[in-house]
């Protein structure tokens, strides 16, 4: 059955601000505004851009022993040891270690109780919520009450500070509850653009007024999913449905750093033994970055070939990179491939030499003390 796309709460506000809307993951979403994707991309890299990502899933789950025990079947982290007021990138795993979804889980006190606050992909709401509610029947989704905004770019701290009091020592992956006009907002120093920035979960009633205030700052503008995609691709970040799916494990995807290695030995964790095996041996595929050597555009689904015309992999995401001024892509290649040899891409009906590169394509610009990978 074909269902009509849902609307985010501020649909009209976006349309009034020049948004071009497209269906995405079951929602009508802004793909770009009047100045276009490339300009929005540059605003985020150089100043500050605001994304409405209210289509994403947000849920609160009581932080208690039973819920932890149930969730740890799917989540490869030690949930008891999650630091308070910290966000963690992780996954829901299926029995084969395949990725049901990638998500951010945070340990925060909300309304006087310790909670896991989880933000997950809109396209995976059904699958994820079935698991969350099975693990924790009292879990409460909050996306019907709260909008979610991402404020991204080197100036985002200056822009947000004018409106919400942000402590000076708040670093990448820190999360806390702050006040915005007497109500509580959840603010984390996260995002998916490779830039410094914040994600803000705020009551729908306050959200338009909040956006209007933010947009009063100089060099700040609304940005859509088009630039969000080119920004995350330049930053080498994986997107569910492209680089990640149920047949790809975190090891395949080069995301071993996001796994708690001790938890992999826990029989309770889905696919733990498979992941250990993959880490020890070698997975059959490897995620790589690809850069076009001319003006051709690399697109999802294009075949990657060796110098004997054998298909060795596929592009999972491709776009024009405004920072590199050429096309970039992420793809998977068989690990038997000799990487010293040249890689070619089947671009429409031509076979062109492309350049393999490490991810990310640009240097990430997070505000942090220690190290973290992605």
């Amino acid at each position: 059955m074909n269902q009509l796309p849902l609307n985010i709460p501020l649909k009209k506000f976006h349309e009034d601000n020049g948004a071009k809307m497209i269906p995405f993951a079951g929602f009508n979403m802004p793909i770009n505004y009047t100045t276009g994707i490339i300009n929005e991309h540059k605003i985020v890299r150089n100043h500050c851009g605001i994304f409405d990502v209210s289509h994403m899933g947000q849920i609160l789950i009581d932080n208690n022993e039973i819920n932890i025990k149930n969730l740890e079947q799917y989540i490869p982290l030690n949930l008891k040891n999650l630091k308070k007021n910290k966000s963690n990138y992780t996954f829901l795993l299926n029995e084969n270690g395949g990725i049901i979804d990638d998500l951010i889980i945070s340990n925060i006190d909300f309304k006087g109780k310790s909670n896991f606050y989880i933000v997950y992909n809109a396209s995976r709401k059904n699958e994820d919520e079935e698991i969350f509610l099975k693990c924790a029947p009292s879990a409460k989704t909050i996306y019907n009450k709260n909008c979610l905004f991402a404020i991204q770019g080197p100036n985002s701290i200056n822009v947000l500070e004018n409106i919400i009091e942000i402590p000076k020592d708040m670093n990448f992956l820190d999360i806390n509850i702050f006040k915005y006009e007497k109500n509580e907002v959840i603010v984390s120093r996260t995002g998916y653009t490779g830039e410094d920035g914040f994600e803000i979960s705020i009551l729908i009633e306050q959200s338009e007024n909040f956006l209007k205030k933010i947009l009063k700052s100089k060099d700040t503008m609304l940005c859509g999913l088009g630039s969000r995609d080119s920004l995350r691709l330049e930053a080498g970040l994986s997107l569910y449905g492209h680089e990640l799916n149920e047949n790809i494990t975190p090891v395949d995807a080069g995301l071993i750093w996001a796994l708690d290695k001790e938890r992999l030995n826990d029989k309770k964790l889905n696919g733990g033994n498979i992941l250990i095996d993959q880490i020890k041996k070698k997975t059959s595929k490897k995620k790589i970055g690809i850069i076009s050597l001319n003006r051709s555009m690399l697109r999802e689904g294009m075949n990657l070939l060796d110098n004997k015309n054998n298909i060795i992999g596929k592009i999972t995401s491709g776009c024009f990179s405004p920072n590199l001024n050429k096309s970039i892509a992420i793809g998977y290649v068989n690990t038997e491939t000799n990487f010293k040899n040249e890689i070619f891409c089947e671009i429409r009906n031509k076979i062109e030499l492309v350049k393999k590169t490490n991810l990310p394509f640009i240097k990430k610009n997070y505000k942090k003390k220690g190290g973290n990978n992605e």
Partner: protein
Amino acid sequence: MSEKKYTKDHEWVSIQNDIATVGISNHAQESLGDIVFIELPSVGKSIKANDEICVVESVKAASDIYAPIDGEIIEINNNLENEAAIINQDAENTGWIFKMKISNEAQYNELMSEDDYKKFLEQ
């Protein structure tokens, strides 16, 4: 220069004597968004109406350009090689893509007038 005409695939065509100039409509440029690359056709190529002639790549997607009329490519807009964004700025003028010598003027007469194209877009 004759009246500008339009195809259902959002190309525009204007003719002078037996030479047609072809580009994509302003509407097409708007819906494609930022255009970053155009794969131009080869001069001298014989083409038939509705053949795929070249490709316009925007940040979002690739879009085929079709021949509006039978003929032969005689000139391409080399300025687009380095600055495809000209199409975004001026799709129906300096953003022309190729010129062709046409062999069947009747095909031109069958294309939509500007008014008809506007109505077509409203449908």
